[in-house]
């Protein structure tokens, strides 16, 4: 057979969610013993494809050949049985059990229900020595670093005779040193003939590790590169595409209005360090970076939700207290990334949610809540934000994502807001409402509010920001403040290939 070294061959894979095609005629080939990278921007369809390959989702159409045989991949169990192992971003280990117990969990050797500890020990020892991955078998998993836990996950998959390991952004929460450990492990696996499907946003990693690369854009395969063809420029070109010119670039002009917010040497141990920047009145500053680069943590710290270990935050020349209470009093507001979990109380009504942040305002009532105050506030906010349906007593969990986000914004707008911290405001929100939210942010800025916008969506950063900061591994890596900036420039800076404009 000519395709003897093909392990997995997917062709014509289709998947739609409520009428929207998220995968269109996707082809993917993974050879035996290769590291195959899968790249694409957020929403390109990577996770859907992985879920189909691991049996979590079923495909609408298309064929999957495993070692030349057609397979259904209808259940997670079937994927396991074939030898497809997946290492999820969110690890699935039992923290209190030991490494050894975790690796063999669910496939223990027993006699009459009793564990055959010596036999299992030997099995583990064999596994570890055959792959040369050193890990203390008797340590509880909760005492290990994230990188070591990933090794445990890998060993767990290998103990089930996996010949294909799918790794979904495994380095997102690893330090550079820890990532090296993982890369060494990947090399070893490759030498043993295990194939790896490697999903990553990090160009330099893919550049270094991948034997081949498949790039997805908008649910379609836009290119397959071989080892020699993999170059950062080419990857970026494929990921972003050439068709849509609008929103791809933007001319930035530095603001001349007075400085208002000054962040000096802000740091939080193990998360980010030495972050200094200023924001001028009425400026929208975009903050880009990979997941795990410290963006969300920086916003939380500025808001006082987490305490900084070093550094100061000044607003209009005054050093602010570090507690959340002090920051809110100074006019800070936070629109968190996890809308339903942190931005809203889903069971409470629109009115209650809008009032939650505002019970300290004059007129709210000192001890007993004044419902007229809440109602007034609610009517005004719903009008100005155009929340639909305009029904104050409706639980927010029944609203669409976009309207929920308006309510989260509305919580802060009734106040004397000075600084608005926004974290991924348009994830899961449809295009029309997205525009409304951009408009809102721009209106606020015109009124003099300082906006810090964290986003993974490059067109969004370009569309709204007056200035763009890029974080990388917890440090300020680049700043774009003037001239024409393209998505490509941003992506290069985010991936750490070059620092774009000088800092």
């Amino acid at each position, binding site marked *: 057979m000519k395709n003897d070294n093909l392990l997995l061959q997917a062709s014509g894979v289709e998947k739609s969610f409520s009428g929207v095609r998220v995968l269109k005629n996707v082809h993917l080939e993974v050879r035996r013993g290769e590291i195959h990278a899968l790249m694409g921007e957020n929403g390109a369809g990577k996770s859907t494809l992985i879920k189909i390959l691991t049996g979590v989702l079923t495909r609408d159409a298309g064929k999957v050949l495993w070692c030349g045989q057609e397979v259904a991949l209808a259940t997670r*169990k079937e994927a396991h049985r074939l030898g497809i192992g997946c290492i999820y971003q969110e690890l*699935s*280990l*039992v*923290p*209190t*059990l030991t490494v050894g*117990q975790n690796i063999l*969990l*669910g*496939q*223990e050797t*027993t006699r009459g*229900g*009793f*564990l055959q500890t010596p036999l299992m020990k030997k099995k583990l020892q064999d596994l570890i020595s055959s792959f040369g991955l050193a890990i203390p078998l008797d340590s*509880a998993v*909760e*005492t*290990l*670093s994230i990188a070591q836990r990933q090794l445990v996950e890998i060993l767990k998959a290998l103990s089930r005779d996996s010949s294909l390991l799918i790794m979904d952004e495994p380095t997102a929460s690893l330090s550079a040193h820890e990532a090296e450990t993982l890369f060494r492990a990947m090399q070893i696996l490759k030498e043993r003939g295990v194939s790896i499907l490697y999903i990553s946003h990090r160009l330099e990693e893919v550049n270094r590790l991948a034997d081949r690369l498949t790039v997805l854009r908008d649910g379609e395969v836009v290119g397959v590169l071989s080892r020699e063809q993999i170059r950062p420029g080419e990857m970026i070109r494929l990921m972003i595409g050439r068709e849509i010119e609008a929103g791809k670039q933007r001319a930035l002009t530095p603001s001349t209005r007075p400085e208002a917010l000054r962040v000096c040497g802000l740091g939080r141990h*193990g998360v980010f360090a030495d972050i200094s920047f200023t924001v001028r009145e009425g400026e929208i500053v975009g903050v880009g970076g990979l997941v795990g680069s410290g963006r969300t943590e920086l916003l939380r710290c500025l808001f006082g939700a987490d305490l900084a270990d070093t550094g100061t935050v000044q607003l209009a020349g005054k050093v602010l207290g570090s507690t959340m209470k002090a920051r809110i009093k100074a006019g800070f507001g936070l629109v968190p990334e996890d809308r339903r979990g942190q931005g809203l109380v889903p069971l409470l009504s629109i009115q209650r949610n809008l009032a939650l942040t505002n019970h300290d305002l004059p007129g709210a009532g000192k001890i007993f809540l004044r419902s007229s105050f809440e109602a007034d506030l609610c009517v005004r906010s719903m009008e100005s934000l155009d929340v639909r349906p305009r029904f104050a007593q409706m639980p927010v969990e029944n609203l669409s994502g976009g309207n929920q986000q308006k309510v989260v914004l509305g919580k802060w707008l009734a106040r004397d807001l000075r600084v608005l911290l926004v974290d991924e405001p348009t994830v899961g929100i449809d295009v029309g409402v997205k525009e409304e939210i951009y408009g809102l942010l721009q209106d606020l800025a015109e009124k003099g509010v300082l906006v810090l916008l964290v986003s993974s969506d490059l067109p969004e950063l370009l569309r709204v920001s007056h200035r763009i900061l890029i974080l990388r591994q917890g440090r300020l890596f680049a700043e774009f403040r003037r001239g024409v900036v393209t998505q490509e420039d941003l992506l290069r800076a985010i991936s750490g290939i070059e620092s774009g404009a000088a800092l």
Partner: protein
Amino acid sequence: MRQETVRRLVSLALLFLLLIILGTTSSSFLSLPNLLTLLREASIVGIVAVGMTFVLIAAGIDLSVGAVLAFVSMLSANLLYSTTFPVPVILFLGTVVGVAAGLVNGVLITRLHLPDFIATLASQGIFRALTLIFAIRTNGLISNKVINNEDFLALAGNTGGLYFVTLAFLLVAVTGQVILKRTKFGLHLYAVGAHRKSAELSGINSNFLRIAAYGISGFCCALAAFFLTAKMETAIPDIGLGLEFDVIAAVVIGGCAFTGGRGDALGSLIGALFMATLTNGLYKFNMPSSVQVMLKGFVIISMVIFDAVYRHEVRREKR
């Protein structure tokens, strides 16, 4: 040193500290009869605590233990009064009822998705009410009719001074420890309690294990019911009232966590001994029972705080 080892040493240290304090301040405390009585008191709580250990490891809680114990006790007494069944048959039937009560809890929790706390709080009420309904009455009033079946009363006896209930306790604790630490069932129970999702992703049937844990708790309640009834020579509806308090205190001292996946039967044995020693010692000092209950409350709170702080420190060190 491993976290579990440290935790074991802490509960042992607490027990020995208490023993030393009482041994040096009270002349009668260390006398053999007193120690044997103390062990006997510890055994009832201890047997139930071993069952509770399984439930807490599976990240559940069983508030119905006192009521299930009372129900089995009353049922056995009824059978002793009104039938001529041989004692082994009565013990068997009582055990079946105890296990069934536990399984009902487990099914409510896993199949009907009731929170553990609510399901067992509700079943506590139900079993307590059933106990009242089956209570022995004369002229419509509840009476404490004495059991005179010699075979049954023999359960309250001793061998060489050591009460049978203490031997049963040791047997239950050792068996529990072996099941938890040496069998697949036990290992999987820890996994389910510590991180249910991961355990399920590894192909473990978590519902089965959780139901089984409640079944074991019910079994232990039935066992304790026989010994307690034999000791009291009668069954009263209020038997085992508030038992869950002492039992939960014991397993928490022994190292179980309400978040699941921690603790073992040996730890709970130490915890039960601690609770019994505390009760015994406070009697020796003529402390009112209000002081006893309050002290136990403080002990629970301090242990939970200790665990939280200690685990936080361990995690910080590792980072």
